[in-house]
């Protein structure tokens, strides 16, 4: 499909996974994450199973694991929280490598780490195989709230316009000797942000007028791409089906 936009999380390709309609992939990713979250944290092997499952999808989509790993670093801030848990968790405690660790704390940390990482990897897989625009179209076909979609669609278009405006304003400040390295010059930057807000607000009003002039009544018109075929649904839902089997097996064994 026509993707005028690319984002850093998207890996252009023509694989089976890329070609699936966005709404199918969104549902599959959502269900998979649900299964991961529902798995008891003691069923360690099940989480390995999920990782294998995702790896199979990456092979099908031709996503290099290194590419995926670099982008998964976005998770890092949350990992910090997880690392604290073994030290701050309640008793009983045990000693390991000279540190006193809480038993439930360690399990809690593992829980956050394993489920968080799998969740991030699943979302990254969706993002890597689906252009932003298609994601929005998929959400629209899944009947997501119209207002949210309108806002997201406009964001997609205007984020770059506003960034360009901010860049020009910064250049104009620097051209007049502004050097934002010094704290006492931060005022000008702050005022710049303020006027950027006002400009964006005014642009919002003009865009609204332009939309009304072309008959906008509150919802984005669906420009009909064909609905997903049954075979596509079955192919994509195979992934959450395997995940569900893992989750159920995990529940039974713990």
């Amino acid at each position, binding site marked *: 499909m*026509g*993707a*005028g*936009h690319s984002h850093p999380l998207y890996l252009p390709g023509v694989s089976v996974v890329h070609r699936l309609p966005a709404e199918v992939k969104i549902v599959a990713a959502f269900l998979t994450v649900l299964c991961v979250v529902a798995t008891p944290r003691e069923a360690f092997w099940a989480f390995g199973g999920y990782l294998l499952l995702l790896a199979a999808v990456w092979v099908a989509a031709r996503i290099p694991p290194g590419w995926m790993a670099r982008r998964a670093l976005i998770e890092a801030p949350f990992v910090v929280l997880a690392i604290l848990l073994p030290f701050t968790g309640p008793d009983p405690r045990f000693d390991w490598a000279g540190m006193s660790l809480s038993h439930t704390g360690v399990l809690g940390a593992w829980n956050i780490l394993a489920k968080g990482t799998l969740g991030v990897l699943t979302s990254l897989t969706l993002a890597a195989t689906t252009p*932003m*625009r298609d994601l*929005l179209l998929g959400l629209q076909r899944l009947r997501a709230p119209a207002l949210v979609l309108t806002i997201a*669609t*406009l964001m*997609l*278009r*205007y984020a*770059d*316009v506003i960034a360009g405006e901010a860049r020009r304003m910064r250049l104009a400040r620097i051209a007049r000797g502004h050097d934002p390295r010094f704290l006492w010059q931060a005022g000008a930057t702050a005022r710049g942000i303020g006027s950027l807000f006002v400009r964006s607000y005014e*642009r919002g009003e*003009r*865009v609204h*007028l*332009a*939309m*009304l*002039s*072309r*008959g*906008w*009544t509150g919802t984005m*018109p*669906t*420009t*009909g791409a064909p609905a997903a075929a049954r075979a596509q649904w079955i192919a994509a839902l195979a992934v959450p089906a395997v995940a569900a089997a893992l989750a159920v097996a995990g529940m039974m064994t713990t």
Partner: protein
Amino acid sequence: MSADTEPTSSLTGAGDETPSLDVRGLDFAYPDGTPALHGVDLRIEPGERVALLGPNGAGKTTLVLQLNGILAPTEGSVAVGGLPVAKPHLQEVRRRVGIVFQDPDDQLFMPTVREDVAFGPANFGVRGDELTARVTGALDAVGMAEHADRSPLHLSGGQRRRVALATVLSCDPEILVLDEPSSNLDPVARRELAEVLLGLDRTLLMVTHDLPYALQLCPRSVVVDGGRVVADGPTRELLADTEMLRAHRLELPFGFTLA
């Protein structure tokens, strides 16, 4: 005046009695009481190309926003192709009046060119193959068909302006209204846009400060100042009237002479 929607098409055939645009005794004041328009009368026949000239703050943009009912007159009336501009048929009025706004970044709000051109007709109920045909037709008319799947962000100023034009052409309007079409265009883009506009064969109202552009594109001009129509006639004659131009803060660019 009848309220039914008679299907006046954008044909430029002679003998069509209904004017494309009929503004009568239009008064308008902003909600804070600032008066903007006083007794504006303006009649545009099908197929006419008219330039709306006037200094900054003359009321040109205010007048444009009256034409599709975004602003409602305090007094007087506007009719487009015989259909009065009023609440019950605002949607049809907005289809008939295709406004191209000054900044294409305001006009082009969808992620791709194709979606933006489809936005208008889709809102007016066009679907399926007909919609595809409208989009292709409009993009062909402005010579932008090969850029259909790009983001407006990645187009040049002149290309954006032509896509903005396509977004209203796809609605098949009775009258095209252009707000400062030549602003921020380099000379080549300016000429290319003129060629596109001259090739469209549609009723046109062009708001501009660019007097040579008005002369090139519009046989007739209307000068607005202080919310009133102060002159209405053949563009060449109006531009030759230096007294009148000076009185309304208009002037031809340096070195420009009427041949």
